[in-house]
């Protein structure tokens, strides 16, 4: 069995209000060296397939990410 991580992020040109809100909050907490924050989703998928990577790529493209506004990256965890 493979454990695969999928990170889904809004495309760079798309507004990310959540990341913006975090960025604005940080200086108040004493963290003033952060220049950008973007927030996305992180999925961990357990899959029992020989072609785990390919399958998860497909799952990400069909279900986990909306290609109109999001990009994704797939990566084996173990």
């Amino acid at each position, binding site marked *: 069995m493979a454990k695969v991580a999928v990170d889904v992020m809004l495309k760079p040109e*798309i507004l990310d209000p959540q990341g913006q809100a975090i960025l604005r909050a940080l200086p108040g907490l004493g963290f003033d060296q952060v220049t950008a924050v973007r927030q996305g989703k992180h999925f961990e998928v357990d899959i029992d397939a020989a072609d785990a990577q390919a399958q998860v790529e497909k799952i990400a493209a069909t279900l986990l990410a909306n290609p109109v506004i999001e990009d994704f990256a797939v990566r084996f965890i173990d």
Partner: protein
Amino acid sequence: MNDGMSEQPYAELGLKDDEYARICTILGRKPSDTELAMYSVMWSEHCSYKSSKVHLRQFGDKAPETDVLLVGMGENAGVVDVGDGLAVTFKVESHNHPSYVEPYQGAATGVGGIVRDILTMGARPIAVMDSLRFGEIDHPDSRRLVGGVVAGVGGYGNCLGLPNIGGEVVFDPSYAGNPLVNALCLGVMRHEQIQLARAEGVGNKVVLLGAKTGRDGIGGVSVLASATFDEESPSKRPSVQVGDPFTEKVVIECCLELFERGLVTGIQDLGGAGLSCATSETASHGGSGMLVDLDLVPLREPSMTPVEVITSESQERMLAIVRPGDVDDVLGVCTRWGVLATVIGEVTDTRRLQVRWHGEIVVDVPPASLADEGPVYDRPFARPADQDALQADTSAALARPKTGAELAETLLRLAGSPNLASRKWVTEQYDRYVLGGTVLAMPHDSGVVRLVDDSDRGVALSLDGNGRYARLDPYAGAQLALAEAYRNVSVSGARPLAVTNCLNFGSPEDPDVMWQFAEATRGLADGCRDLGVPVTGGNVSFYNQTGATAILPTPVVGVLGVLDDVNLRVPSGFVRAGDVVMLLGETYDEFDGSEWAWVTHGHLGGRPPLPRLPAERQLSNVLQTAADERLISCAHDLSDGGLGQTLVEAALVSGIGVSVTLDGDPFVALFSESAARAVVTCADADVDRLLEIVADHDVAVTRLGRTGGDAFVVTGEFALPLDTLRETHESTLPRHLS
């Protein structure tokens, strides 16, 4: 200035040859790239109303005499005097195309956009509504679209703190590739707080407030909403706009404080066409000039070009005109609310809109040429060749239920059908309580809100449409939509005052569609005249079609009424057992285009029920008088599904049953969709006075029976337990959409 000696790509930008030639004539030269982009978006169908203008004029020309309109059509939204020095503004707008591409964000930004329109008038937004249409409920795409759109409407409105007080959800195959997402916002202000979108006063500063400008929805309005949407051409797909309701919320509070302190002399929201629209409209309406320095516009991405900056449709932005001496105060208020605000230009005496980029003037045009003097088309229209055949194919031959058991089965089937089933799955996702002024919301016939804390004055609103009726006869269909909304407002006890509308149609370049549009606008304008309620504003959405197939023509009409005292509002559900149940209005054998014909036979043909506008007015007068005298405990209009459905809905609100005896053909009595009817209930002691009022207004009345028990009983025909009805009525949406 780049005067583009080479061929300019105007066709790709959606401009026709003669439109391009006109731009050259206006300017006396070829436009710069930036100017060309601005004309392309401002002269798009969506922004210029070029195909609809000649028809929409009727709303003004035929408008009934009224003294309640403080601001009429043509501004961002009309303003209606509701008494006590209070005024309301309301408007409905479409966000159909973006909602198909990205249902959540499309719907969310639709709400955001209409709320800014209302804010622009100087009003505090106090409620929203949404009218939604999708393909069949079991279409493979419905869960994504309905789920996304409803979550988006809720996500934005809830986060903004605006109660959602009503709307519609309709399923029909024609909307499968073209869902309709129409959002309405209501705002309240004192008369003296009305703001206008004018840039006046030479030397006044132009301040951009709110979100940074990014590459969102560039070309969105011109391309997406002004041409047939084609999934096969991804290049036509503009980047999607993402909403940030939190920023909008602080922008609203910030602007309201600026208005309150008299710190702005004019204000305009940024919606379709972004800065192009806001700068040219304010300058044009103010009869002034404006110089804008694009380098000062705060950008999300520094690499943006001037074309991108000036056409970006980034959300949550407003443009304010501020006296130089007030700039510091304005920036101070903005800082307190955490709203970004930047002086980007000033009002000039040039009567030209000039835009500077990197020190160079890249735009120098007469503002009115962008904002008000776009092309106007009187597009050809013709009654569709199949219209006669469609109308000839009536429902007369369809098999009707005969026995009591068949009637019961039909009633149950209708109550659980996608268009008549409970909307709870949708409405539970919307906050209806925030702000504390909601007096009636779902499942009542209209939304009712108290306007301000220190007065009992309130307004009622309903949003209705019926694409099937409009397909059979667009003139009558538009009037039926108007009549239904008018009736819904009336049953709550309110006095109907004014109308907004959103006209959703296919391609205006198709003469059949253009005929539907022409007929619907004519019908609506005539109807408003006959009912005595003026149109205050609205929106047109064309190009709602997939390939050559247009959606059902769908005029959606919103009617606003006033209640001098919200304590007198009448709910749509039975409130106690033992009340007398009466039907007001006359029932005819009218089944063409009905829910019954559609649900049980999949039939659409014939002519819709006759709009009976004089009867609607009389009915409305009866309902208002009865409400004022506190005679009726409940009132529910009759519309889709007829009397049967009305009684089911009224009974399920608080689980009080009803027994009725029907004269004549029970099928016709239960399922006909004749207009100008309502059910009311009252205590025995009030029956005589009610009958007097009914007689005074010459309205027909039928005593049907009494409330009580835990079943829906039709004497001699059937008895259906409420539990069975509830289960059927409430399980349909969750079953398909969860």
